[in-house]
């Protein structure tokens, strides 16, 4: 039994909860379908988006240089981090230089990937997540269970009880999501006003202009950068795209795919620091990406724009939950990214796929996610990372199928097979 399958079994023990989980994410898939089916040019957009990504990734050296030059011209300070450790050190270095004790940040899967929060906390810096879902799981000490809706696995009661414990709620027993959201707003407002620095991730970096583009529904990236005197933006290398014409294609696909809205509430462009503030710092993070780009079978995983739609449509994700996967990004793209990161550590996830290929049919940039999982599976025997039973089963099948007589004997036991039923002179 693979590790994922063990975890999934535990997840499915609670039939009511798992049914709710499945229905919740299927509803997001349906919202996405409404958007996709309402836009006649949808498939054309996907095709263009895929081609733009192939072009950009295969010219990434040029676009990164263009981006960093443009950003520097805008007055930003651009850093290049080779790996997670270097990224964390750069962030800490900037924060130390500015005497920062507390930062507010918007959601970033990259900082999650690099383990930035625990690193900074270890250095005595307080990090406050400001996306509501991220804030909730931060207070619970959990990891995200989904990249777009990180706390959707929790029920209103679980959030309500957390807010009561944390002193965020005042009306005990009121677990209405509207009330809880309002209480979180009041609590976070204070953090926005007093933070020394704001940190954002990036949905896109625009090579032509040096813009950092951040899409949120809550406006928390904008709140995080409106009061503090320092803004640090972190982006993975693959987030850079050529220009605004390309951005329009991705902007139209991203939110429709992610949550089924025609756009996020905020699509914000950060080019310069706000007046009177310190220069904006942009950190370009490699952390494996440049090597993955050289992987002939799997480099296209880098096309991903992190919309999460492959998770919502995945029948296995919906019935096993984000925590059943060993990598911090779950679902089809998470299986692939985990294998790129560390195949030995994450090979237990590749069984979590029926090869139904729904993921690659929803993917707005046409990453061939299912086909890549198939390819990763081919590597397991090579690494000897296969469960023993499966290997024996496949060897057995192989032997029988390669020997028609053996096969006839084997199948004859089951039922009177077709090959013995045929009545007349077919052969």
């Amino acid at each position, binding site marked *: 039994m693979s590790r994922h399958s063990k975890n999934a079994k535990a997840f499915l023990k609670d039939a009511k909860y798992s049914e709710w989980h499945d229905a919740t994410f299927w509803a997001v898939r349906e919202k996405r379908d409404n958007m996709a089916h309402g836009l006649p040019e949808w498939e054309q957009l996907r095709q263009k988006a895929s081609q733009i990504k192939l072009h950009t990734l295969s010219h990434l050296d040029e676009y990164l240089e263009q981006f960093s030059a443009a950003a520097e011209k805008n007055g930003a300070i651009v850093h290049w981090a080779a790996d997670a450790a270097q990224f964390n050190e750069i962030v800490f270095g900037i924060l130390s230089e500015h005497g920062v004790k507390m930062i507010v940040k918007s959601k970033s899967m990259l900082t999650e990937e690099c383990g930035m929060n625990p690193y900074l906390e270890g250095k005595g810096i307080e990090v406050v997540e400001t996306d509501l879902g991220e804030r909730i799981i931060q207070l619970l000490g959990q990891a995200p269970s989904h990249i777009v809706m990180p706390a959707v696995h929790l029920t209103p009661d679980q959030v309500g009880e957390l807010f009561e414990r944390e002193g965020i709620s005042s009306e005990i027993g009121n677990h209405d999501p509207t009330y809880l959201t309002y209480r979180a707003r009041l609590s976070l407002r204070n953090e926005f006003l007093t933070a020394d620095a704001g940190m954002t991730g990036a949905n896109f970096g625009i090579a032509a202009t040096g813009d950092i583009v951040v899409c949120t529904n809550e406006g928390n990236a904008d709140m995080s950068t409106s009061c503090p005197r320092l803004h640090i933006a972190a982006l993975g290398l693959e987030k850079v795209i050529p220009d605004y014409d390309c951005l329009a294609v991705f902007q139209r696909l991203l939110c429709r795919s992610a949550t089924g809205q025609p756009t996020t509430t905020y699509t914000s462009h950060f080019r310069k620091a706000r007046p009177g503030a310190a220069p904006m710092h942009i950190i370009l993070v490699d952390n494996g990406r440049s090597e993955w780009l050289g992987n002939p079978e799997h480099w296209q995983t880098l096309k991903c724009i992190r919309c999460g739609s492959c998770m919502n449509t995945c029948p296995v994700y919906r019935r096993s939950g984000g925590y059943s996967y060993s990598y911090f990004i779950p679902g089809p793209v998470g299986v692939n990214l985990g294998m790129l990161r560390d195949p030995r550590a994450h090979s237990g996830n590749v069984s979590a796929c029926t*090869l139904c290929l729904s993921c690659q049919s929803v993917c707005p940039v046409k990453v061939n996610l299912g086909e890549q999982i198939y390819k990763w599976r081919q590597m397991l025997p090579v690494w000897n990372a296969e469960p023993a039973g499966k290997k024996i089963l496949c060897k057995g099948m192989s032997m029988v199928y390669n020997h028609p007589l053996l096969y006839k004997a084997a199948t004859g036991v089951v039922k009177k097979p077709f090959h013995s039923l*045929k009545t007349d002179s077919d*052969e």
Partner: protein
Amino acid sequence: MKVGLFIPCYVDALFPQVGMATLKLLRHLGVDVTYPAGQTCCGQPMANGGFESQAEPLARRMEDLFAGFDYVVTPSVSCTAFVRHHYPKLLKEGHTCEIASKCMDVVEFLHDVVKPTALPGRFPHKVSIHNSCHGVRELGLSSPSEEQIPQQNKIRDLLHMVEGIEVVEPERRDECCGFGGLFCVEESTVSTRMGLDKVRRHIATGAEFITGADCSCLMHQSSIAKKNGLEIGFKHVTEILAAGL
């Protein structure tokens, strides 16, 4: 037009009536069809499980077995998809791969090549179509629900020629049933849950039968239906199309 009938291993062993129905149907429609002896398996189960190399000799067997036919027709969408999409890269040295381009699932062969305008049978029942993933997303038997393309369904088109039939589709019309070859062994809990969800959605349509173009999906669901005491019948689409033959 010479057609070679390919009866995949599990269809041969477990659903010989589907092989018979396919044969009768093709004959009835005047197709020159032959069943070459010595068939086993296309290699899909091993390859999907991560043992693609074990599928290579089987691919060579298949290529040799079906040399000389214009079409290779089979009542299995996932085997067709495997032969069509994976054989070209499996058969490397010294072997041209002809079977990949001439292998067709029986539904697409009937719909796109034979194009019958009438079928003799009657099937006065309500049936719910099971759209198998590989049929939908690899062979295009129906429009994937994810995509913004004109809606069509080749299984439905053929079934509509059968007298007395009522054809419906379940909610979540092309969500996977959870079979997935070795998936149902490795991830048995999720697989079972998916199958149960699927059967219930089919039953919710009020259908008496679940029908589809892939026996493996039907097999998976029928065993789950049986275990859970759920009353619904299962028929491969050829069994319905060949009704009355």
